[in-house]
Protein backbone atom coordinates (compact mmCIF):
# COMPACT_ATOMS: atom_id res chain seq x y z
CA UNK A 1 0.00 0.00 0.00
CA UNK A 2 1.54 3.28 -1.08
CA UNK A 3 1.10 6.32 1.07
CA UNK A 4 0.52 6.81 4.81
CA UNK A 5 -0.44 3.55 6.48
CA UNK A 6 -2.93 3.26 9.34
CA UNK A 7 -1.65 1.22 12.27
CA UNK A 8 -4.25 -1.44 11.67
CA UNK A 9 -2.64 -2.29 8.31
CA UNK A 10 0.84 -2.68 9.78
CA UNK A 11 2.11 -6.16 10.63
CA UNK A 12 4.10 -7.71 13.45
CA UNK A 13 5.87 -11.02 12.91
CA UNK A 14 8.01 -13.33 14.98
CA UNK A 15 10.65 -15.67 13.55
CA UNK A 16 9.85 -19.36 13.93
CA UNK A 17 12.83 -20.28 11.71
CA UNK A 18 16.51 -19.43 12.09
CA UNK A 19 18.47 -16.22 11.89
CA UNK A 20 19.94 -17.22 8.57
CA UNK A 21 16.69 -18.61 7.18
CA UNK A 22 13.84 -16.78 8.87
CA UNK A 23 10.23 -17.93 8.77
CA UNK A 24 8.11 -14.96 9.68
CA UNK A 25 4.85 -15.89 11.48
CA UNK A 26 2.20 -13.19 11.69
CA UNK A 27 0.98 -12.05 15.12
CA UNK A 28 -2.62 -11.20 14.13
CA UNK A 29 -4.26 -9.99 17.34
CA UNK A 30 -2.02 -6.99 17.94
CA UNK A 31 -3.89 -3.92 19.12
CA UNK A 32 -1.67 -0.84 19.46
CA UNK A 33 2.07 -1.07 18.83
CA UNK A 34 4.86 1.39 19.38
CA UNK A 35 8.62 1.18 19.65
CA UNK A 36 11.21 3.49 21.12
CA UNK A 37 14.89 3.85 20.42
CA UNK A 38 16.01 5.92 23.39
CA UNK A 39 19.60 7.08 23.18
CA UNK A 40 22.03 7.95 25.91
CA UNK A 41 23.98 11.09 25.09
CA UNK A 42 27.42 11.98 26.34
CA UNK A 43 28.33 15.62 26.66
CA UNK A 44 31.66 16.57 25.08
CA UNK A 45 32.23 20.19 25.93
CA UNK A 46 35.55 21.86 25.41
CA UNK A 47 36.92 25.25 26.13
CA UNK A 48 37.46 25.65 22.43
CA UNK A 49 33.77 26.31 21.87
CA UNK A 50 30.80 27.90 23.50
CA UNK A 51 28.68 24.97 22.33
CA UNK A 52 27.88 21.91 24.43
CA UNK A 53 28.32 19.13 21.91
CA UNK A 54 26.87 15.64 22.45
CA UNK A 55 27.68 12.28 21.02
CA UNK A 56 25.44 9.26 21.06
CA UNK A 57 26.84 6.85 23.59
CA UNK A 58 24.25 4.08 23.69
CA UNK A 59 21.04 3.20 21.81
CA UNK A 60 18.14 1.25 23.20
CA UNK A 61 15.18 -0.47 21.53
CA UNK A 62 11.91 -1.48 23.13
CA UNK A 63 8.84 -2.68 21.23
CA UNK A 64 5.53 -2.44 23.09
CA UNK A 65 2.33 -4.04 21.82
CA UNK A 66 -1.05 -5.05 23.10
CA UNK A 67 -2.60 -8.44 22.31
CA UNK A 68 -6.32 -9.15 22.10
CA UNK A 69 -6.50 -12.71 23.41
CA UNK A 70 -9.93 -14.33 23.07
CA UNK A 71 -11.08 -16.45 25.95
CA UNK A 72 -12.01 -19.97 24.91
CA UNK A 73 -10.33 -19.71 21.51
CA UNK A 74 -7.21 -21.77 20.83
CA UNK A 75 -4.40 -19.37 19.84
CA UNK A 76 -1.01 -20.94 19.19
CA UNK A 77 0.65 -17.57 18.54
CA UNK A 78 -0.42 -16.22 21.92
CA UNK A 79 0.65 -19.41 23.66
CA UNK A 80 4.13 -19.03 22.18
CA UNK A 81 4.60 -15.34 22.94
CA UNK A 82 3.09 -15.62 26.42
CA UNK A 83 5.66 -18.34 27.07
CA UNK A 84 8.53 -16.02 26.11
CA UNK A 85 7.36 -13.49 28.69
CA UNK A 86 7.75 -15.87 31.61
CA UNK A 87 11.17 -17.19 30.70
CA UNK A 88 14.32 -15.85 29.09
CA UNK A 89 13.61 -16.94 25.52
CA UNK A 90 15.18 -14.69 22.87
CA UNK A 91 13.09 -14.27 19.80
CA UNK A 92 13.29 -12.15 16.67
CA UNK A 93 10.49 -9.73 15.79
CA UNK A 94 9.87 -7.94 12.51
CA UNK A 95 7.89 -4.71 12.91
CA UNK A 96 6.61 -4.11 9.38
CA UNK A 97 4.52 -1.43 7.70
CA UNK A 98 2.87 -4.01 5.46
CA UNK A 99 2.93 -7.67 4.49
CA UNK A 100 6.50 -8.87 4.85
CA UNK A 101 6.44 -10.57 1.47
CA UNK A 102 5.32 -7.44 -0.38
CA UNK A 103 7.79 -5.34 -2.32
CA UNK A 104 8.28 -1.99 -0.69
CA UNK A 105 7.48 -3.15 2.82
CA UNK A 106 9.89 -1.77 5.38
CA UNK A 107 10.52 -3.62 8.61
CA UNK A 108 12.69 -3.36 11.69
CA UNK A 109 14.33 -6.65 12.57
CA UNK A 110 15.75 -7.35 16.00
CA UNK A 111 16.18 -9.97 18.72
CA UNK A 112 14.32 -9.47 21.97
CA UNK A 113 13.48 -10.80 25.37
CA UNK A 114 9.93 -10.27 26.64
CA UNK A 115 7.94 -9.09 29.62
CA UNK A 116 4.20 -8.63 29.94
CA UNK A 117 1.24 -7.35 31.91
CA UNK A 118 -2.53 -7.61 31.53
CA UNK A 119 -5.33 -5.12 32.00
CA UNK A 120 -9.04 -5.94 32.34
CA UNK A 121 -10.97 -2.62 32.20
CA UNK A 122 -14.57 -2.92 33.30
CA UNK A 123 -15.92 -1.26 30.15
CA UNK A 124 -13.70 -2.75 27.50
CA UNK A 125 -12.14 -5.99 26.34
CA UNK A 126 -9.20 -7.34 28.33
CA UNK A 127 -5.76 -6.88 26.80
CA UNK A 128 -2.35 -8.47 27.35
CA UNK A 129 0.46 -5.93 27.10
CA UNK A 130 3.85 -7.16 25.93
CA UNK A 131 7.15 -5.31 26.05
CA UNK A 132 10.04 -6.65 23.98
CA UNK A 133 13.51 -5.42 24.94
CA UNK A 134 16.44 -5.63 22.58
CA UNK A 135 18.73 -8.37 23.81
CA UNK A 136 22.26 -9.62 23.23
CA UNK A 137 22.46 -12.59 20.87
CA UNK A 138 25.15 -13.98 18.60
CA UNK A 139 24.70 -16.04 15.54
CA UNK A 140 27.73 -18.18 14.71
CA UNK A 141 29.88 -15.75 16.63
CA UNK A 142 28.42 -12.68 14.91
CA UNK A 143 26.56 -10.21 17.11
CA UNK A 144 22.99 -9.63 16.01
CA UNK A 145 22.18 -5.96 15.77
CA UNK A 146 18.82 -4.46 14.77
CA UNK A 147 18.49 -3.79 11.06
CA UNK A 148 15.98 -2.00 8.86
CA UNK A 149 15.04 -4.03 5.82
CA UNK A 150 13.17 -2.80 2.76
CA UNK A 151 11.68 -5.65 0.75
Amino acid at each position, binding site marked *: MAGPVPG*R*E*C*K*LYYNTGTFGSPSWTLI*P*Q*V*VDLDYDMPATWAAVPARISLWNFEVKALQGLVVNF*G*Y*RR*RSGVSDAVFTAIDGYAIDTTKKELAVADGAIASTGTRYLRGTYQFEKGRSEPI*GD*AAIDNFSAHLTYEEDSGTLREPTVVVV
Partner: protein
Amino acid sequence: MAAVIQTLRDEVASTLTTQSAGWAYTFSAVAKFQPKFDFEDVDSLQVQVVPLTWSKAPSSRDLWEHEYVIGVGIHRRLAALDTTIFNNLLQLCEQISDYYEDNRATTSDCVLMGIEFGGATGAPYNHETIETQNTFTSVIQLTFRKYR
Protein backbone atom coordinates in the same frame (compact mmCIF):
# COMPACT_ATOMS: atom_id res chain seq x y z
CA MET B 1 -27.95 -17.61 7.98
CA ALA B 2 -29.26 -14.57 9.81
CA ALA B 3 -27.33 -11.42 10.66
CA VAL B 4 -26.10 -11.32 14.26
CA ILE B 5 -28.22 -8.25 14.97
CA GLN B 6 -31.36 -10.02 13.77
CA THR B 7 -30.69 -13.09 15.91
CA LEU B 8 -29.93 -10.81 18.85
CA ARG B 9 -33.21 -8.93 18.42
CA ASP B 10 -35.19 -12.17 18.20
CA GLU B 11 -33.48 -13.61 21.29
CA VAL B 12 -34.22 -10.48 23.34
CA ALA B 13 -37.89 -10.65 22.34
CA SER B 14 -38.09 -14.33 23.21
CA THR B 15 -36.30 -13.87 26.55
CA LEU B 16 -38.54 -10.97 27.58
CA THR B 17 -41.68 -12.96 26.74
CA THR B 18 -40.52 -15.91 28.83
CA GLN B 19 -39.32 -13.87 31.81
CA SER B 20 -42.38 -11.60 31.91
CA ALA B 21 -44.37 -14.37 33.61
CA GLY B 22 -42.74 -13.30 36.89
CA TRP B 23 -42.92 -9.53 36.36
CA ALA B 24 -45.43 -6.75 36.99
CA TYR B 25 -47.17 -7.57 33.68
CA THR B 26 -47.07 -10.62 31.45
CA PHE B 27 -46.67 -9.87 27.77
CA SER B 28 -45.54 -11.20 24.42
CA ALA B 29 -42.70 -9.10 23.09
CA VAL B 30 -42.72 -8.73 19.32
CA ALA B 31 -39.51 -8.48 17.26
CA LYS B 32 -39.88 -5.83 14.56
CA PHE B 33 -37.88 -4.01 11.90
CA GLN B 34 -39.96 -0.91 12.45
CA PRO B 35 -42.32 -0.69 15.39
CA LYS B 36 -45.73 0.54 14.32
CA PHE B 37 -48.79 1.08 16.45
CA ASP B 38 -52.27 2.42 15.97
CA PHE B 39 -53.27 4.73 18.79
CA GLU B 40 -56.51 2.78 19.20
CA ASP B 41 -54.57 -0.44 19.89
CA VAL B 42 -52.16 0.85 22.52
CA ASP B 43 -54.77 0.49 25.28
CA SER B 44 -53.23 -2.90 25.98
CA LEU B 45 -49.55 -3.25 26.87
CA GLN B 46 -47.34 -3.36 23.76
CA VAL B 47 -43.69 -4.42 23.94
CA GLN B 48 -41.76 -4.27 20.72
CA VAL B 49 -38.06 -5.05 20.15
CA VAL B 50 -36.08 -3.46 17.33
CA PRO B 51 -32.43 -2.98 16.37
CA LEU B 52 -31.58 0.68 16.90
CA THR B 53 -27.91 1.10 16.06
CA TRP B 54 -25.01 -0.99 14.81
CA SER B 55 -21.46 0.32 14.88
CA LYS B 56 -18.08 -1.25 14.26
CA ALA B 57 -14.54 -0.31 15.21
CA PRO B 58 -11.20 -2.13 14.94
CA SER B 59 -10.43 -4.12 18.07
CA SER B 60 -7.13 -5.56 16.90
CA ARG B 61 -5.39 -5.95 13.56
CA ASP B 62 -7.55 -8.99 12.99
CA LEU B 63 -10.79 -8.41 14.92
CA TRP B 64 -13.60 -5.89 14.71
CA GLU B 65 -15.68 -4.86 17.65
CA HIS B 66 -19.37 -4.85 16.71
CA GLU B 67 -21.67 -2.88 18.98
CA TYR B 68 -25.40 -3.46 18.69
CA VAL B 69 -28.05 -1.42 20.45
CA ILE B 70 -31.38 -3.21 20.77
CA GLY B 71 -34.35 -1.06 21.73
CA VAL B 72 -37.21 -2.38 23.85
CA GLY B 73 -40.27 -0.13 23.50
CA ILE B 74 -42.99 -0.29 26.15
CA HIS B 75 -46.31 1.41 25.39
CA ARG B 76 -49.59 1.49 27.24
CA ARG B 77 -52.42 4.01 26.87
CA LEU B 78 -54.89 4.53 29.68
CA ALA B 79 -58.40 5.99 29.62
CA ALA B 80 -57.25 8.47 32.25
CA LEU B 81 -54.02 9.02 34.17
CA ASP B 82 -53.61 6.30 36.75
CA THR B 83 -50.54 6.56 38.94
CA THR B 84 -50.95 2.98 40.17
CA ILE B 85 -50.69 1.57 36.67
CA PHE B 86 -47.90 3.96 35.73
CA ASN B 87 -45.98 2.89 38.84
CA ASN B 88 -46.45 -0.74 37.83
CA LEU B 89 -45.16 0.05 34.36
CA LEU B 90 -42.11 1.77 35.83
CA GLN B 91 -41.55 -1.31 37.95
CA LEU B 92 -41.76 -3.42 34.76
CA CYS B 93 -39.03 -1.26 33.20
CA GLU B 94 -36.87 -1.85 36.27
CA GLN B 95 -37.56 -5.60 36.17
CA ILE B 96 -36.46 -5.74 32.55
CA SER B 97 -33.24 -3.82 33.17
CA ASP B 98 -32.52 -5.72 36.40
CA TYR B 99 -32.89 -9.03 34.59
CA TYR B 100 -30.19 -8.08 32.12
CA GLU B 101 -27.94 -6.61 34.83
CA ASP B 102 -28.20 -9.62 37.12
CA ASN B 103 -28.04 -12.33 34.50
CA ARG B 104 -25.45 -10.73 32.19
CA ALA B 105 -27.11 -12.86 29.56
CA THR B 106 -24.69 -13.69 26.77
CA THR B 107 -27.23 -13.33 24.03
CA SER B 108 -26.31 -14.54 20.55
CA ASP B 109 -22.71 -14.83 21.82
CA CYS B 110 -22.76 -11.05 22.41
CA VAL B 111 -21.80 -9.54 25.74
CA LEU B 112 -24.08 -6.99 27.42
CA MET B 113 -22.13 -3.76 27.80
CA GLY B 114 -24.73 -1.23 28.87
CA ILE B 115 -28.36 -0.43 29.64
CA GLU B 116 -29.86 3.02 29.04
CA PHE B 117 -33.26 4.57 29.25
CA GLY B 118 -34.57 6.97 26.66
CA GLY B 119 -31.27 7.23 24.74
CA ALA B 120 -29.48 10.53 25.08
CA THR B 121 -32.17 11.95 27.35
CA GLY B 122 -31.88 9.26 29.98
CA ALA B 123 -35.56 9.70 30.83
CA PRO B 124 -37.20 6.49 32.14
CA TYR B 125 -40.36 7.37 30.20
CA ASN B 126 -41.56 10.04 27.79
CA HIS B 127 -42.99 12.89 29.84
CA GLU B 128 -44.88 14.43 26.93
CA THR B 129 -46.95 11.38 26.00
CA ILE B 130 -48.21 11.08 29.58
CA GLU B 131 -49.94 14.43 29.09
CA THR B 132 -50.85 14.45 25.41
CA GLN B 133 -51.73 10.79 24.89
CA ASN B 134 -52.41 9.35 28.38
CA THR B 135 -49.74 6.90 27.32
CA PHE B 136 -46.78 5.48 29.21
CA THR B 137 -43.93 5.22 26.71
CA SER B 138 -40.53 3.92 27.69
CA VAL B 139 -37.59 2.84 25.57
CA ILE B 140 -34.89 0.68 27.14
CA GLN B 141 -31.69 0.43 25.12
CA LEU B 142 -29.57 -2.68 25.58
CA THR B 143 -26.03 -2.40 24.23
CA PHE B 144 -24.33 -5.64 23.21
CA ARG B 145 -20.84 -6.20 21.91
CA LYS B 146 -19.33 -8.98 19.83
CA TYR B 147 -15.75 -9.41 18.63
CA ARG B 148 -15.55 -11.03 15.24
